[in-house]
């Protein structure tokens, strides 16, 4: 079966410090990978998604970046954190979608980031 891991689970970082959140998926190959941010326990904001190694689509221009160095690894980074970067960060995966298929996304447990 497939599993998705995120770490760390919680993180407290000062403003201006760097960030690296990691997500890995097990039990599947060539997944689509996604990073979402959830503020204040409500709506989900899609940040990045990737359909393959080195292929990253950015949905929201900001001080965050994403990389996919390996097939099942997705990393969210920042060089300098802002207070507004605080939130709950969720990684998700889905099978590579062929035209006409509706595959669900599976979410990791999330990382709670507090920028102080």
């Amino acid at each position: 079966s497939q599993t998705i891991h995120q770490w760390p689970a919680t993180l407290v970082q000062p403003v201006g410090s760097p960030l690296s959140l990691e997500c890995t998926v097990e039990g599947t190959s060539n997944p689509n990978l996604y990073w979402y941010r959830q503020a204040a326990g409500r709506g989900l904001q899609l940040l990045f998604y990737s359909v393959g190694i080195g292929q990253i689509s950015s949905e929201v221009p900001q001080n965050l970046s994403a990389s996919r160095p390996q097939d099942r690894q997705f990393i969210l980074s920042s060089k300098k954190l802002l207070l507004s970067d605080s939130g709950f960060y969720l990684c998700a995966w889905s099978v590579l979608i062929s035209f006409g298929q509706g595959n669900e996304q599976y979410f990791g447990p999330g990382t709670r980031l507090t920028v102080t």
Partner: protein
Amino acid sequence: AQSVAQPEDQVNVAEGNPLTVKCTYSVSGNPYLFWYVQYPNRGLQFLLKYITGDNLVKGSYGFEAEFNKSQTSFHLKKPSALVSDSALYFCAVRARGNTPLVFGKGTRLSVIA
């Protein structure tokens, strides 16, 4: 562009009563529709989806959803609510193609004993 609306921020229901969480969508062509549930400080869990076929879709934990093309709706339902159903519920849509799901803003369900 595709979008999802969840018109209620909060739904309160008594335990044992039926519950409905509303969702409407906007998408070009035929949609793929999804419901997820989120418990506090947890990731989202997939409940059910509509792709094609029967308009009534059954999912996990006794939930079901009814697809209504004419009203562009996909409401989540359960015949008898449990206190443990209290959580945040998200509706999502994807048009055909290799695109991420688009989520609604979520509806907080509170089931009162």
